[in-house]
């Protein structure tokens, strides 16, 4: 820091100024490095509490089993997990997973499409917001299972459309709301910076508002997925589609057969799929936050 001790004007030479600035920058950034640990270490740190939780659940389950409570209908973890292993060897389970996932993907994709279009329109057009904005939230509070009678009458019983209809209705409001909130909470300072820069209308949306709303939008997607997944499984239990095995069909079949180990095994599969997709959204959210420096 020559300028602070040398007693001469520091703006004198560009060379000197550049050296001072560079030195100051290096000092400023010195404490910012070395924060990120190795990937394997971080993965393990994220994983072990989850494994511990699973182990804890299995231990408690086994303990309940050992007390003999509801002995006749409630199997222990050993029986259930070996049942799951056995089911995993059959094509039936995998075909069921395939059908359910296919519906999930189609339903969620439709929900994203519709949610984004509605969200973008409502966020941009003021009168539309007054009219539709509160309706979107109202839709969100409606339990999706209440839509099934309507959907079945509309599309006929045993149609995939009825299920997809309810999935879209369950997920789209969250996605639309995520986008609207993201647009609403674009920091005013950034809007000001963009406006002064000369960004207007379409370019303002494309280069500023949409990227700025990304984290909130991803949170909306994540919530939308949770709603979609719940609605889908409810739908598969209620709307019975013949000759097309799905996770819902498996569940209701095992219920009819009072086959508790198989029922719990399918529930575990549903839980795992839900968790996996959720953690994908979590990963997307985390990577955005890291890029933005929010973590």
């Amino acid at each position: 820091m020559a300028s602070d001790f040398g007693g001469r004007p520091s703006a004198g030479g560009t060379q000197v100024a550049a050296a001072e600035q560079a030195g100051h920058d290096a000092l400023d950034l010195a404490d910012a490095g070395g924060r990120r640990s190795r990937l394997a270490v971080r993965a393990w740190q994220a994983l072990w509490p989850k494994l511990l939780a699973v182990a804890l659940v299995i231990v408690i389950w086994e303990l309940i089993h050992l007390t003999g409570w509801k002995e006749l209908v409630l199997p222990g973890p050993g029986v259930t997990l070996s049942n799951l292993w056995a089911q995993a060897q059959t094509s039936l389970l995998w075909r069921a997973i395939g059908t359910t996932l296919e519906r999930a993907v189609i339903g969620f994709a439709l929900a994203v499409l519709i949610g984004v279009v509605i969200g973008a329109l409502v966020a941009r057009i003021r009168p539309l917001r007054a009219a539709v904005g509160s309706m979107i939230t109202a839709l969100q509070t409606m339990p999706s299972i209440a839509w099934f009678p309507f959907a079945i009458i509309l599309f006929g019983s045993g149609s995939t459309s009825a299920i997809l209809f309810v999935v879209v209705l369950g997920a789209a409001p969250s996605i639309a709301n995520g986008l609207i909130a993201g647009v609403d909470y674009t920091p005013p300072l950034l809007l000001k910076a963009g406006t002064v820069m000369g960004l207007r209308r379409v370019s303002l949306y494309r280069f500023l508002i949409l990227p700025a709303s990304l984290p909130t939008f991803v949170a909306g997607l994540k919530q939308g997925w949770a709603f979609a997944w719940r609605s889908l499984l409810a739908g598969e239990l209620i709307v019975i589609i013949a000759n097309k095995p799905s996770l819902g069909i498996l569940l209701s079949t095992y219920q009819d057969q009072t086959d508790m180990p198989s029922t719990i095994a399918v529930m575990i599969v549903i839980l795992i799929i839900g968790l996996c997709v959720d953690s994908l959204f979590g990963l997307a959210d985390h990577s955005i936050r890291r890029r933005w420096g929010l973590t």
Partner: protein
Amino acid sequence: MSTTAVTEAPATVTLTGVSKVYGRGGTAVHALDQVSLTASPGEFTCLIGASGCGKSTLLNLVAGLDKPTAGQIAVGGRVALMFQEPGLFPWLTAAGNIELALRARGAAKAERRAKAAELLDTVHLGGFGKKRPHELSGGMRQRVALARALAQDADVLLMDEPFGALDAMTRDLLHDELDRVCQGRNLTVLFVTHNVREAVRLGDRVVVLSSRPGRIIAEYQVPIDRPRRIDSAPVAELAGTITDRLREEMSRHGK
């Protein structure tokens, strides 16, 4: 009544009897009252005043972000604005932020890349183009913001306490940086600050505003040769005179 016009006037910025009132009736706030100010091309004007003197309002009006309640504002050329916070876009790299400003004024892709690299060099951030804002220090971010403002190819640079959130040492270096950048660019600068020494260190002229309503109460030319130092005797002396004038104004409000 109120107009904002882009003209080919010899002065880059001309405010004539500009007033700004927020709200109506009894609760109305008179942010600015009959402010007339002229800034010639290449002139560095510092605006100083206590809280509530409408400094930020004045810049917003010149930037065209708000309209005056009365009076006229004429700005001859493009305007860029810098704030106390860098206001960088966190999803873009340092270079990306500058390139977006170039894109907004219609520069082609190849030109954007070359020009952004050049501007980063100008603010001594040559090797930091790929960094994201959060990976830079406060002073570095503010320099990226300066480079982004320069990318807008503005004739008028409005600065709203741009160094207010920085530590003294970083600020001193940025003063040198700003001095150097302004040399040979013929930039007209309106620089708002509440730091009297900073105003004297940087300005060709210091304009003192009163508070509520904001009015111009004094103007001082700064006849000190550049390069200047914030801790030199002439700077301290003039800053002392201006501070006395400001205190006089503030004590008026205490009564």
